[in-house]
């Protein structure tokens, strides 16, 4: 590997360059001190950027009014998933109106590409891509999210409810 070295006379006069740089830094310092609202940066861990409501972050499984999962284990999300990160095991529900439900629903979040195809494929609005995106963790943590994590996460306070509920749909005869 060859390193290019500029040994010309002109390059020895570095001071103008440094002063030029300092001038720009100083200009921004003064600007930010006088007008703190328009600052470009955030104090990251304390302050967080708010994304638009359409932001596609970590998945959330929605629940019905009684707190049970909306998911019917139809596997359309798993079929549609390009990263093949969704694994569902279906089971028979005691209630004949529900009939089929997921006994396990797992998303391997490290495989997920956050494309949102699962959300689009879902016929019952059971899976959504939520606002949460900062989920760093250590080596040994669990990156395979199960039902308990996806639907009843503590900061969701009992899960997200969809606005149309089954009973109302049945009343309308759908």
């Amino acid at each position: 590997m060859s390193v290019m070295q500029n040994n010309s006379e002109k390059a020895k006069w570095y001071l103008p360059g440094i002063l030029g740089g300092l001038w720009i830094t100083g200009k921004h310092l003064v600007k930010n001190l006088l007008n703190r609202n328009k600052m470009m940066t955030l104090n990251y861990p304390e302050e967080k950027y708010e994304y638009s409501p359409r932001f596609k972050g970590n998945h959330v499984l929605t629940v019905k009014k009684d707190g049970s999962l909306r998911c019917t284990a139809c596997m359309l999300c798993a079929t549609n998933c390009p990263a093949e990160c969704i694994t569902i095991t279906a089971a028979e529900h005691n209630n004949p109106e529900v009939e089929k439900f997921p006994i396990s629903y797992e998303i391997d979040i490290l495989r997920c590409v956050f494309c949102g195809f699962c959300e689009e494929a879902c016929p019952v609005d059971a899976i959504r891509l939520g606002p949460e995106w900062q989920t760093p963790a250590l080596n040994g943590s669990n990156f395979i999210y199960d039902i308990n994590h996806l639907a009843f996460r503590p900061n969701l306070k009992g899960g997200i409810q969809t606005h149309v509920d089954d009973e109302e749909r049945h009343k309308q005869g759908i």
Partner: protein
Amino acid sequence: MPKCTINGKEVEVKEGSSIIEAMQVSGDRIAHYCWHPGLSVAGVCRVCMVEIEGNPRVQIACNTAVTEGMKINNTSDKVKDAVKWGLDFHLINHPLDCPICDQAGECGLQDQYMEYGKYDPEMAEPKQKKHKVVDLGPTIVLDSERCILCSRCVRFTEEVSKTNELGIFNRGDRSEIGTHDGMKLDNNYSLNTVDICPVGALTSKDFRFRQRAWYLKDAETICNGCSTGCNVKVYFNKEGFFRVKPTFNEQVNGHWMCDEGRNVYKFVNKEHRLLKAQVKGQGSSWTEMSAGAAAKAAAEVIKAAAADSLALVLTAQYSVEEFEAIVTTFVKDFKSNKIYFWINNKEAFDNFDGLLVRGDKNPNTKGLLKVLEKHGITATWNELSRGLKSGAIKTVVVAAPENQVVFPDFADRVKELSQAQNLIWLQSGQNEALKKLDGNVWLIPMKTFVEKDGTFINHSGLEQKFKKVTLVVSEALTLTEAALLLAGKNLNIHATSANEFLPLNQRLDQVAVEARKKNEFVFKRGNL
């Protein structure tokens, strides 16, 4: 032989056949729910509409006989309109719960809806509510809402199984399929009703919710449940086998198969299989090794044994080619004529239920007898018992059954054969009785009928070839391979040591196990 023109093509059909049969011959697509080639004509679904020249209205194809010079068309706008409206009437009370329905992906109604559906129903009334998840019997669950009342299942129990359990009750849009008072849909052919159900109204309890239809691949093979040798399709994916369905073969099974035969996929799956060879000496514990290595070790023992102390026990569960290979090896290489036929249920051998099921629960009894006859072998089991008792027979090779369920005498025979000094046991499945064996035992995993090519000869002497479907236990041997290895010959199979981590198809220059372990995060990601 009347000739008719279907969509511009001229077709010659058998006397008295209907238009829909003519269309099957000519290869034209036509939707049909109530019509089934194996059942009588009902003409209730009204979707197989065709236009016949000179006839002012569209007519159903399944109940109209072909006459000479008939001009039939099922692609005109008039027909399409009729089909579209017929479908809309079917869907008035259909819940369209395809996401939950097991039939989704292989549903006649779904296919038809994608092609002809109005997508915007004009029915304003609420849907009629009917019974969901009705337990019809030990094998079947009914969902009345999905039912389109094609009456295929009712006609099946009337005409084929002749058990008459099912009927249509109530009138109008309250009509429902159900079983007669106090009866259960409990016969040995009940699961055929699930196959012929064009929608997801009848579902099999065994298969219900286990897999979606589009995750499964299918392949044709021969059922090894009994000597009838029904032609079947097995459905599988990388997790294993999930169900068995019949395919049409006029000579053997027609359109049907029995419920017992639908269980043959179970012993094929990995959890019931012997994955590695197990070897043990007198008094010591089991050691695991590869099948090839175990067979090689067993070959040493056979080499050292005298020809008259060597015996072979065969069950009629392997293909003709395999029998030929192992019997030839014994007769030619080992100079032993002590080849015995392990018959599982002799007294029930000639039983027949009048439709398909036979008492002989081996797929290839005729084939085995043919091979034994060819080599002039007449040894009986009593000779083996005497030989084992007196100690004349010291080394026994057993080609044990794949389907252990039909061998009620399995444990007794294992006990009897364990009198031999050296026991070379070739078997595909696990069994508790084998774990208790004491003495020198080589337990070698074998391939099942879905993992090899071969021929079965059924009860009537019909030779049926079948092809390999997939590989479940890659290390297992076929009986042909085992015969070669036992004879001390070499076989070009991949033999791996017991602890190797890498799969067989991996190149040597790929990351070694030790290097992978160092990068713990990558290595353990899947199961933390």
